[in-house]
């Protein structure tokens, strides 16, 4: 079914419609403007809108600019290796100094030194000039790149001018000593460091003599190392310890040599890089911090790894055509996948791992407590219990249980009987499957109403919402299929998908509204319920008419059943009998003791008896589930409807020719065909339901025995500030969807 989306361009609408749409959009903006201008805080709002637009523009522009820029950079690699090296070295250097400069660790340690003060004064004074020169050089490089890309050399001069102007601006903001200003804080060291690195990249990109290259690498390393040492001069002075230094260096070198061997590169560069990293870790990681330590040793400790990195960068001979192509191809992969993988790692994978780590610590994430947070959850030590089996004893006494067991037995007997007639052990047909299904649902409900707790509630949600939404969605899809009003009807059912869970909760809270018994009910359900009670206990003409109607329809149904049985055409008897049974029960209650929201008060007169849908446990849970069913059914319907339409029509025609009835076609042909799609719908809905939060939060906030995992996690973590238990709950939630995840992966592997 992968061809469900075939590439196609959007159909161009008639021009009039598009003009009308544009007009409507303009009118809308005008109305919005007037609306905002009229309000009391219009200036605040306009500020907000403008700042939002600017922020969005910066975010979108900067990120796309960076991405396109990097792509263009690698385009340069194919055309002009030297320019590529210059730009790449500059970028990496700039980034390095940006990160280093932003590191609180480096900036806050140690006292201010008078030497550095003096140097900073000098740089401050000369800043505008330096910045202009540096930026002009950068502009020259960029301009030449653009000029070559666009093929017009005239672009170089304007670019240089623009960059130089930018440099002046940067320099001026620097001298103004704007305390903590953006440029001062962020851009000063990166620009200098980047420019120097770019210069060495430029030299290296044009050198092919081995000795000269290595000399360049060493000199470049020393220069950048001195710059770094200068930058962290007052911050960090490591103590000298030969063991701390040598061991990590050797370990790093060996480790990288091994890795290099694995990827079948020449080992020397790997060794150099590993040694540099090991040295840095050893000198700065393991050693003691001492602000009054030796300055000479500080400088040496910093310069050495830079020299090693310089050697690493210059070790291999100037890249030939093959290696260039390799570099470009390798880089493209990361350019295309990098942003997404970075975002996913930063917002999903790493936080999830950290959540697991936090779940093993106490409430303030300070002490290791092992699995005790999980223990709390599963031994009911939280504010709301996870499992509560206290009422399990009342299970045999519940009406649902008493109905469910006989129904399932009855279905089993039918199945065996029908099966015997057809030579099978057991036959799943309407007569056997319907009672078993209904009986199972009753039984499950009976269990869920007696066994309570957060995790049980979640299970109940999953069971009910997934089952009902999928079943109802399928039923509606079948009902609507090929009818004249299909599109309109489906749009109505689908509409709740566009409404937020919060909005849906507000909508349904109004439906469930229950008022004091003495007052008129304003919620639809209670109005109907109390009204029904009034009707069934009343004695006026309406009651009489409804009674006659009930009896008449009951008789019609019975007549239909009898005549069908007499003619031996058993089609439709089972559903008719079900409806007749329900109707008979309803009529009996209506004519007898009365149904609906009325009860006999202590004084003997009738008083209204509304249902507290939201407060009365355990079925308030069910009324909350209805909201999610209301939302999710549309989703199931759309997907299943498309799947039904995708069933090849030859199958259906062939079946019709063979004399199959509609229900046979549905059960024997359509259903097996859409089975995989039902799987997709069910797994999707399970995932949505497992993490249900908004509805419970807005309507009950977990009170009245309606707590679910997601809401409990929110309360524990953010209201009671217990990060340990909150994380543990999140992990439990994650583990509970793991089976679904594995199912999805398996499906995908099959599809791939």
């Amino acid at each position, binding site marked *: 079914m992968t061809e469900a989306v075939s*590439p196609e361009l959007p159909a161009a609408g008639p021009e009039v419609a598009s003009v009308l749409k544009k007009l409507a959009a303009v009118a809308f903006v005008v109305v919005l403007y007037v609306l905002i201008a009229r309000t009391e805080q219009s200036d605040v709002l306009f500020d907000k809108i403008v700042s*939002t637009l600017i922020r969005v523009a910066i975010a979108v522009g900067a990120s796309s600019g960076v991405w396109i820029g990097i792509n263009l950079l690698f385009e340069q690699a194919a055309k002009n290796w030297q320019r590529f090296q210059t730009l790449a070295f500059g970028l990496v250097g700039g980034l390095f100094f940006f990160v280093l400069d932003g590191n609180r660790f480096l900036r806050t340690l140690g006292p201010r030194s008078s030497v550095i003060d003096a140097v900073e004064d000098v740089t401050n004074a000369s800043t505008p000039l330096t910045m202009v020169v540096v930026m002009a050089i950068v502009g020259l490089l960029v301009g030449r790149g653009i000029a070559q890309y666009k093929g017009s050399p005239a672009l170089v001069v304007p670019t240089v001018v623009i960059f130089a102007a930018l440099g002046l601006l940067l320099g001026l903001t620097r001298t103004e000593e704007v305390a903590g200003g953006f440029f001062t804080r962020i851009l000063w060291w990166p620009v200098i460091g980047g420019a120097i690195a770019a210069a060495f990249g430029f030299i290296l990109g044009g050198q092919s003599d081995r000795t000269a290259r290595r000399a360049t690498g060493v000199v470049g390393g020393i220069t950048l190392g001195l710059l770094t040492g200068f930058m962290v001069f007052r911050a960090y002075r490591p103590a000298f310890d030969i063991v701390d230094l040598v061991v990590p260096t050797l370990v790093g070198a060996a480790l990288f040599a091994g890795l290099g061997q694995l990827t079948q590169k020449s080992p020397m560069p790997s060794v150099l890089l590993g040694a540099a990293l090991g040295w840095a870790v050893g000198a700065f990681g393991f050693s003691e911090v001492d602000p009054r330590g030796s300055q000479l040793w500080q400088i040496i400790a910093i310069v050495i790894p830079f020299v090693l990195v310089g050697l690493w960068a210059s070790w291999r001979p100037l890249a030939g055509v093959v290696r260039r192509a390799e570099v470009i191809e390798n880089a493209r992969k990361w350019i295309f996948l990098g942003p997404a993988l970075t975002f996913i790692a930063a917002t999903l994978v790493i936080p999830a791992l950290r959540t697991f780590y936090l779940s093993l610590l106490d409430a303030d994430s300070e002490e290791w407590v092992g699995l005790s947070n999980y223990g709390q959850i599963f031994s009911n030590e939280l504010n709301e219990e996870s499992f509560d089996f206290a009422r399990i004893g009342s299970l045999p006494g519940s009406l649902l249980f008493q109905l469910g067991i006989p129904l399932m037995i009855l279905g089993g007997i039918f199945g065996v009987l029908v099966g015997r007639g057809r030579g099978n052990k057991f036959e799943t047909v309407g007569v056997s499957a319907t009672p078993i299904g209904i009986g199972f649902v009753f039984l499950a409900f009976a269990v869920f109403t007696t066994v309570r707790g957060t995790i049980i509630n979640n299970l109940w949600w999953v069971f009910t919402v997934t089952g009902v939404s999928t079943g109802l969605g399928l039923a509606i899809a079948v009902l609507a299929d090929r009818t004249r009003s299909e599109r309109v009807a489906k749009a109505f059912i689908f509409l709740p998908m566009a409404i937020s869970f919060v909005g849906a909760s507000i909508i349904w809270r109004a439906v469930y509204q229950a008022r004091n018994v003495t007052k008129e009910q304003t919620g639809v359900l209670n109005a109907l319920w109390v009204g029904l009670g009034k009707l069934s206990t009343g004695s006026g003409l309406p009651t009489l008419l409804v009674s006659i109607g009930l009896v008449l329809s009951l008789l019609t149904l019975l007549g239909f059943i009898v005549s069908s049985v007499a003619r031996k055409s058993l089609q*439709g008897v089972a559903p008719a009998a079900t409806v007749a049974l329900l109707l008979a029960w309803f009529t009996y209650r209506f004519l007898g003791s009365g149904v609906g929201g009325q009860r006999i008060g202590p004084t003997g007169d009738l008083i209204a008896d509304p249902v507290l849908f939201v407060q009365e446990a355990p079925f308030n849970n069910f009324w909350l589930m209805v909201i999610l069913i209301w939302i999710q059914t549309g989703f199931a319907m759309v997907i299943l409807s498309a799947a039904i339409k995708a069933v090849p029509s030859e199958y259906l025609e062939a079946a019709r020719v063979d004399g199959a009835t509609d229900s046979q076609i549905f059960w024997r042909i359509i259903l097996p065909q859409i089975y995989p799609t039902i799987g997709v719908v069910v797994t999707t809905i399970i995932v949505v339901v497992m993490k249900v939060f908004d509805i419970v939060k807005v309507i009950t906030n977990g009170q009245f025995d309606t707590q679910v995992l997601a809401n409990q996690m929110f309360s524990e973590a953010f209201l009671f500030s217990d990060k340990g238990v909150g994380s543990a709950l999140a992990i439990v939630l994650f583990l509970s969807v793991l089976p679904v995840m594995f199912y999805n992966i398996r499906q995908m592997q099959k599809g791939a």
Partner: protein
Amino acid sequence: MASTQFPGTRGVGKAIYRVLSGIPTGALWFVVVIWSIPTFGLAVNSFRGRDDQRNSGWWTVFSDEGGTSLDNYETVLTASSTNSILESLANSFAIAIPATIIPIAIAAFAAYGFAWIDFKGREWAFIATVSLLAVPLQVALIPLLQLYSGGAHLTLPLMDKTLTLIPDFGLAGTTTAVWLTHTGFGLPFAIFLLHNYISGLPKDVFESARIDGADHFTIFWRIVLPLSVPVLAAFAIFQFLWTWNDFLIANTMIGAQRTEQPTTIAIANLAGDYGRNEHLLAAGAFVQAFFPLVVFFSLQRYFVRGLLAGSVKG
């Protein structure tokens, strides 16, 4: 399947058949009415005054002379005394727009990479990425909130030193934190959806472009993006609806910070202390739902297509 045929019946049988065959359409419309009553009721109530709403059901509007007016909407949109829904609308846009545009771009790159750039372990990388679809986002909330409110710091083991990996940008309680989070969470689905489509583009287009000397960037920019407009639109609608309607992430990252709240939090809190403003809830809910509904009705075609492309996979 009540439209069953009764072979060999005449007269009464035919009449019964005609009644029965009408049942599917009747049942369908019955369901439609049931489905629409809650929304319709709230819509009616949003035009009724405070006392009317409190004392009688919305259906009395058809029998009584009870007045309808736009007062509730005016109060909701203009009053600053309670919560400014207008401000929260601006916040919702500040969240939904970047949270829609940025993931589209990022996911398009990745989907192209997974579909048309050959490398070792591509299949596995793709499945691993997309399997994250099912991960409940609760699992990432606590660390993300810590990241936004204090940056990321790594205390190196054995060395007793702390490195700042990401400095504190002061994002806690801002809309930026919300859309950054949405961007990350939306990516697995976006990549899945776009990959389905982009990997189905005809292969010869790419081959001839490569022969003409186009590299990946050019192919992506000049060929793939223009061809992918329908699926990009489908995802945009999804992501817009999702981010606009989100409550959990906004509530976690922004919480009680009133000036930054999006509409979902604003209307959830609209009732105010002791339900003083409860009569405004209906109007507030419809103001909140206005943009999603407009998007939904005008672009339903794309929305449904996106839904299908995202789920209908064997």
